[in-house]
């Protein structure tokens, strides 16, 4: 049962008799939801029926597969900072959400997913399209709940939104039996949830830890900041920048943190992790103090843990206490919302310029430019590289676009080379690494931030995983730019086979349809190019096109993403080739 929250008692004249389904829609309006991504079916029909009366207030985007709905919800949430809302029917509709839930859970994305369920009296009978979605989704949701009585709907919805967006955000799933959707009850109004007795989304900031952290930082000779998505989730971009600029500390990012500090900020020293930059990886093992902000020391970032920053005192700022000390031993745990903790820390840290130390990052960067970046961005070989496509894109968007990337080599290239002037501009599946994410997520991102240019960078493999969502683009008329980097391989897997499996290219040679024709079948303009001379104009055409546009760029087949920290190696063993 629900907790006994204090509901404001309504007088009889304030109550009205409505269906559970309508109460759900009213709850969405109260939560200021403007867009829903969904797909109907028998068990959620009452909700769709109720929605029919509110289409002037609520925009529903009909996707082509529920996985598309949830990735779109994620793109919407990640670009806008609001909660993504998803509808699906019971059984297969609900199970199609599972990948997206797992993705949102690991990448801390606030979602409220509503699934229909069979009539309550049929629960557990293997009824038509019945699945035990609550048990299926328990490990991949922050919270889930099954409603079988309409009276519960207002309170459950209020809790769902509160839980999804507060503390460390995450996906919530509410499963509503069909009888509860149909049931008429006395709706006494909607009270947003502000408190749940057993749930503490954020702690009181402990000043003694802040003081301790400041002391450690002030004594440091070579301090180094690693930041992640937590900075954005806490909307602490400004506070973060002030801290960085006052303390003078070089800062590097995880792929989900990209953009919280502009790419060309002088203290932004690049990307961490397996395909991150050379300097920040090597120097992680040389710094004396490591300040981790809203990041979780994922194994793609740390490489071998027993050889990770052993020399450094680690200060970890995070809203989720279970992340502090989970993977690396922490000297100073700063549990809290970085929106609150960072200003307190900034107050106490001494203003400094770590000139020599920063210079060291630049020297490593020069080596990386010489060994990798120069040839990737300005190749002398005939064939196009993924890097030069990104470089051209940067020039033409001036770093103002939202870049949504799929998973594979192109993702690493996109994250490494995209110039990002604004926060919430890099949307990718970080923790789960879900191929097929980018196309629907880009659709969602555009709905979340209609005034921004959204470019999806997708591999030929990942595009074919969810390309049915071209139908969603067609029908909704949403404007997203689809940039397919076609290397005719499942490139990232091929790279590993080349490096670690003796070039035994086992099932990575993937054929593509004529994407331009496919797009045209959906009424979407497109172009395919393979020559350098065509690149600039083609990108320009894509970006200036009114409405969606698909641009396929044929790139070098067997290019590898470097630098690379091979699996099982320490970050300082990062290879330049």
């Amino acid at each position: 049962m629900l907790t006994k929250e204090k509901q404001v008692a309504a007088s009889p004249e304030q109550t009205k008799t409505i269906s559970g389904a309508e109460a759900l829609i009213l709850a969405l309006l109260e939560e200021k939801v403007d867009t829903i991504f969904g797909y109907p079916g028998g068990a959620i029909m009452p909700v769709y029926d109720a929605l029919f009366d509110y289409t002037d207030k609520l925009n529903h985007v009909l996707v082509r597969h529920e996985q598309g709905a949830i990735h779109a919800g994620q793109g919407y949430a990640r670009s806008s900072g609001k909660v993504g809302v998803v509808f699906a029917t019971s059984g297969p509709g609900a199970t199609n959400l599972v990948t997206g839930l797992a993705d949102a859970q690991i990448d801390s994305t606030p979602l409220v997913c509503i699934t229909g369920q069979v009539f309550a009296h049929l629960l557990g009978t293997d009824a038509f399209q019945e699945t035990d979605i609550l048990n299926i989704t328990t490990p991949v949701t922050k919270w889930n709940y099954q409603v079988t009585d309409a009276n519960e709907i207002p309170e459950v919805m209020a809790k769902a939104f509160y839980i999804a967006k507060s503390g460390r955000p995450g996906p919530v799933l509410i499963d509503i039996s069909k009888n509860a959707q149909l049931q008429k009850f006395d709706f006494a109004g909607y009270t947003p949830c502000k408190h749940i007795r057993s749930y503490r989304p954020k702690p009181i900031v402990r000043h003694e830890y802040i003081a301790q952290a400041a002391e450690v930082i002030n004594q440091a000779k070579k301090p180094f900041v690693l930041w992640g998505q937590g900075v954005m989730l806490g909307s602490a971009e400004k506070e973060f920048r002030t801290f960085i600029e006052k303390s003078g500390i070089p800062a590097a990012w995880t792929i989900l943190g990209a953009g919280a500090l502009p790419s060309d900020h002088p203290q932004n020293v690049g990307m961490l992790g397996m395909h991150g930059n050379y300097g920040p990886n090597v120097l992680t093992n040389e710094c004396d103090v490591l300040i981790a902000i809203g990041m979780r020391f994922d194994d793609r970032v740390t490489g071998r843990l027993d050889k990770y920053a052993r020399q450094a005192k680690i200060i970890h700022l995070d809203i989720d206490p279970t992340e502090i000390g989970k993977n690396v031993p922490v000297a100073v745990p700063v549990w809290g919302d970085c929106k609150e903790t960072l200003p307190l820390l900034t107050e106490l840290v001494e203003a400094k310029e770590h000139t020599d130390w920063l210079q060291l990052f630049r020297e490593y960067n020069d080596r990386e430019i010489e060994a990798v970046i120069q040839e990737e961005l300005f190749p002398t070989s005939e064939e196009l590289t993924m890097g030069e496509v990104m470089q051209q894109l940067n020039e033409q968007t001036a770093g103002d676009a939202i870049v949504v990337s799929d998973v594979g080599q192109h993702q690493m290239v996109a994250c490494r080379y995209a110039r990002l002037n604004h926060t919430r501009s890099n949307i990718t599946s970080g923790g789960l690494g879900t191929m097929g994410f980018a196309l629907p997520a880009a659709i969602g991102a555009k709905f979340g931030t209609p005034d921004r240019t959204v470019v999806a960078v997708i591999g030929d493999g990942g595009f074919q995983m969810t390309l049915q969502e071209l139908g969603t683009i067609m029908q909704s008329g949403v404007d997203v730019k689809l940039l397919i980097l076609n290397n005719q391989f499942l490139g990232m897997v091929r790279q590993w086979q080349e490096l670690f499996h003796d070039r035994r290219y086992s099932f990575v040679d993937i054929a593509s349809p004529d994407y331009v024709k496919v797009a045209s079948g959906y009424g979407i303009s497109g172009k395919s190019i393979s020559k350098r001379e065509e690149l600039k104009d083609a990108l320009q055409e894509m970006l200036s096109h009114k409405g969606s546009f698909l641009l396929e760029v044929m790139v070098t087949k067997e290019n590898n993403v470097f630098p690379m920290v091979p699996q099982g190696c320490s970050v300082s063993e990062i290879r330049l080739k």
Partner: protein
Amino acid sequence: MSNQNHTDKQEFNITVYTENHIGLLNRIAIIFSRRKINIESLNTSPSEVEGIHRFSILIKESEEVVRKIAGQIEKQVEVLKVYYNTNEEVIWQEMALYKVPTDVIAERAVVERLLRENGARAVVIRKDYTVFETTGHREETDNLIKVLEPYGLIEFVRSARIAIIKDSEGFHKKLQEFEQSEPGHEVVENEYLSSREKVFTM
């Protein structure tokens, strides 16, 4: 296999106070199963506070692992508080039931002595069988199995461990803290998430 050193492992009694919520048992159980940790014993029951449930979970792990697990459990929305304690820090009991044929036991054993020596009592005496009960630590309840085996022990069952933390004042006081802070600033919503425009520009 976890990479923890076996020698670090010892029994830990995890006490979880929760809201009474369907599905929570599953949520808690998968925190263990996901990490391939075997639950040695699990008991769930109402606590001294109305509406609040108490789980007693026994695992054999290193303190490091137990600390992290406890954090993960406490992170669940409906979980109010998690404590973990070594055996020295709790008072714990398990209960066992033993079924033996009445004729054998009556004929051959000096039943009274047997019960007295093992701190047991007869719960049911029927013509065909008798059920004894003991309560205690594992070794104590194990003892009676050995004693009864020669008399044709038919069935044996032992309950989950329940434990009371020596150094605790129960949950009433803690709960007051939780409720006093309602909706105290310890639990305010992350309001910044919905004021994007104001804070997102650089």
